[in-house]
């Protein structure tokens, strides 16, 4: 089987390597992808259109808003699917047999985590809100926020983290994120533009058209952050306890 599977792999590899000769050189400024009018438009006009210095955030949340919205929906659906697959799946006492470590939460670890978790959460908010001018944004901030809850679950046990942020609340927050995203899109539709055309929000916000896009992007990123936070924590909580949400790792 192993030998047999090498045949298509070597064939594909040969073809790809043969094709690799036609790729542009490393760091070629004149490569087709860099010369294309779309990316030049994004680089040249982002500052004019949206006043956001970080082009990646602007393209992510504004120019390709539909894409990001449905990516968020994909993350949400994946979280729901994990919940549906693992919920009530444990039969009897399916405790693990490989690693039997019955330990109390360690004093040093818990105290350090107590010190660090607020800082992580503030940093997550910073990354979320500062994504316009520096690397960061909704996905990264949301993942950091979810990681802080995962840290609580790792250092105490899962029940403590779930008592702080229960799975029901998780799913509500995740859905709320998508509602925020879609709501901003619908709001701009109601104000006379198209779906996710943030510039129309100038009628309700006391700013110019460009700054309306700037602020709407922040709202959208907050929505993404909500969903990603909740789903990352739900993913960990379900996978580490086989869906029972007790004891955890």
């Amino acid at each position: 089987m192993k030998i047999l599977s090498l045949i298509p792999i070597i064939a594909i590899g040969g073809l790809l390597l043969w094709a690799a000769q036609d790729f542009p050189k490393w760091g070629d400024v004149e490569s087709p992808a860099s010369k294309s009018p779309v990316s030049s438009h994004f680089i040249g006009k982002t500052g004019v259109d949206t006043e956001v210095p970080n082009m990646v955030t602007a393209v992510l949340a504004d120019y390709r808003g539909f894409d990001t919205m449905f990516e968020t929906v994909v993350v949400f659906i994946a979280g729901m699917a994990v919940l549906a697959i693992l919920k009530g799946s444990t039969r009897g006492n399916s405790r693990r047999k490989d690693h039997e470590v019955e330990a109390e939460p360690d004093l040093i670890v818990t105290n350090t985590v107590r010190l660090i978790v607020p800082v992580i959460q503030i940093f997550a908010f910073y990354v979320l809100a500062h994504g316009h001018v520096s690397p960061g944004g909704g996905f990264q901030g949301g993942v950091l926020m979810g990681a802080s809850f995962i840290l609580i679950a790792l250092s105490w046990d899962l029940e403590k983290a779930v008592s702080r942020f229960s799975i029901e609340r998780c799913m509500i927050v995740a859905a709320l994120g998508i509602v925020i995203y879609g709501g901003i899109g619908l709001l701009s539709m109601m104000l006379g533009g198209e779906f996710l055309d943030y510039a129309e929000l100038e009628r309700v916000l006391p700013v110019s058209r460009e700054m309306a896009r700037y602020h709407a992007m922040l709202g959208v990123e907050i929505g993404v952050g909500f969903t990603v936070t909740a789903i990352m924590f739900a993913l960990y909580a379900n996978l580490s306890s086989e869906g029972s949400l007790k004891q955890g790792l």
Partner: protein
Amino acid sequence: MIGLEIFNTFILLLLVVAAVASLWVRDLLVSAVVFGVYSFLMCLLWAEMGAVDVAFTEATVGAGISTVVLVATIFHLRRKSND
């Protein structure tokens, strides 16, 4: 500039080593951790290529969450793999 290219080549070769190692090892826990190393190397490479946002996402998601999720799953499965 030539220094950067050497750095690049070095990381690219290390990437192949890490990828092969994470599939070679019999112990799945070690495999997951080596996969985390692979993700961090990838993140370093992208930061060097100028894709800071992608690098940041990979550092939080690829190296952080996916390693944790893999380890959490392997804890409930058998740790040994036959190949």
